[in-house]
C-alpha cells in the first residue's frame, strides 16, 4: 500500500481526536449529571424512557 504513513496519520489523528472529544463530553456529562437533580434533566432521555 502506497502512502501508508499518511493514511495512518490522517485516519489516526481524526479518529483519535473524535474519540478524545467524545470521552471528554461523556466525562463532563457524568460530572454534571451527578450534580443536577433528575427533575431538572429535561432532554436527557429517549422518548418513552423515564428520567
Amino acid at each position, binding site marked *: 500500500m502506497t*502512502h*501508508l504513513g499518511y*493514511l495512518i496519520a490522517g485516519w489516526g489523528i481524526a479518529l483519535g481526536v473524535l474519540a478524545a472529544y467524545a470521552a471528554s463530553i461523556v466525562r463532563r456529562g457524568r460530572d454534571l449529571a451527578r*450534580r*443536577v437533580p433528575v427533575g431538572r*434533566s429535561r432532554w436527557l432521555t429517549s422518548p418513552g424512557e423515564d428520567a
Partner: protein
Amino acid sequence: MTETMETTDTTGSRGSRLLGVVTLLGLATLLLFAFALTEPDVRLHPTTGQEIGQFDAVRLLYLHVPLAVFTYVAFVLCAVASAGYLVKRTAWFDTMAYAAAEVGTVFCGLVLVTGSIWGRPVWNTWWEWGDVRLMTTLVLFLMFTGYLALRRATVDPRASARRGAVVALVAVLDLPIVNRSVEWWENRTLHQKSTLGELKIQDLTLFTLMLGFLVLGLVLAWLLLHRFRVGWLEREDAGHGVATAIAERRADIDEGDVDAAVGEGA
C-alpha cells in the same frame, strides 16, 4: 418549592446508546471498506499509457470529504439555532447553537488536518496560502474558534448567548464562499470541482464515500446529542447553584431576623 435531590450519573439514554453502538459498527465497516475492499485510485493515462491517480492516498478522502460536508451541516445548524435564539430567546436554541458550534469546530479542524495530510503526497504540499478553499475554510475555523472563545469569555449568560448568536450568523456567511470557491476562483485553487455533482465516481469508490457520509453523519449526531445534553446540564447546574445560594442566603437572613427578634424580646 421542594425538589427531589435524586440524580443520575450519565447523559446517555437508551436511544443514544443504540446510536453509539450503530456508530461504532459503522466506523468499523467504513475502515474495512476504505482500507481493504476498495481499490486505490490508479488508472492508465489515455495518451501516455502510464499509471496516474492518487494511488492509496485516495483512502483519506473517504474521511476528509464527509468531515467537510458535516462541518457545513453543524455550522448551518448553529446558525439556524442562533437565529431561533434571537427570535424566541429560549435556552433550547442557545444550547443547540453552542453545541453545534463546538462539534462543528472540531470537525472543521479535522478537515484542515486531514486535508493537509492528504495534500502532501497528492499535491506535493502540506499547505498552499494561495488556495481559496483552504483560506476560506481557515477563516471559517477561526471565526467559530472566536465564537467559542467569546462564549467562554462572556460571564453574563444572556450576553454570551446574544453575542454568540450574532457572531454565528456572520460566520456562517463564509459557508457558501467555501463551497463555491472552486467554481468562482478556479485559477486560485488546487481543489478540483465537485466530483459528486458531475457523477465522476462509480462502483465501490462511490459506495464507500456514501458510507463515509452515513457514518460521519452518525458520529456528528451522537456528538451533538451528548454535547447538547452537557450544555443543558451546565445551564441547569448553574441555575441550581444560584437557586441554592439564594435559598441559603434567605435562610441566613431569616435566622438572623429571628435572632434579632429574640434578642429584642429578651
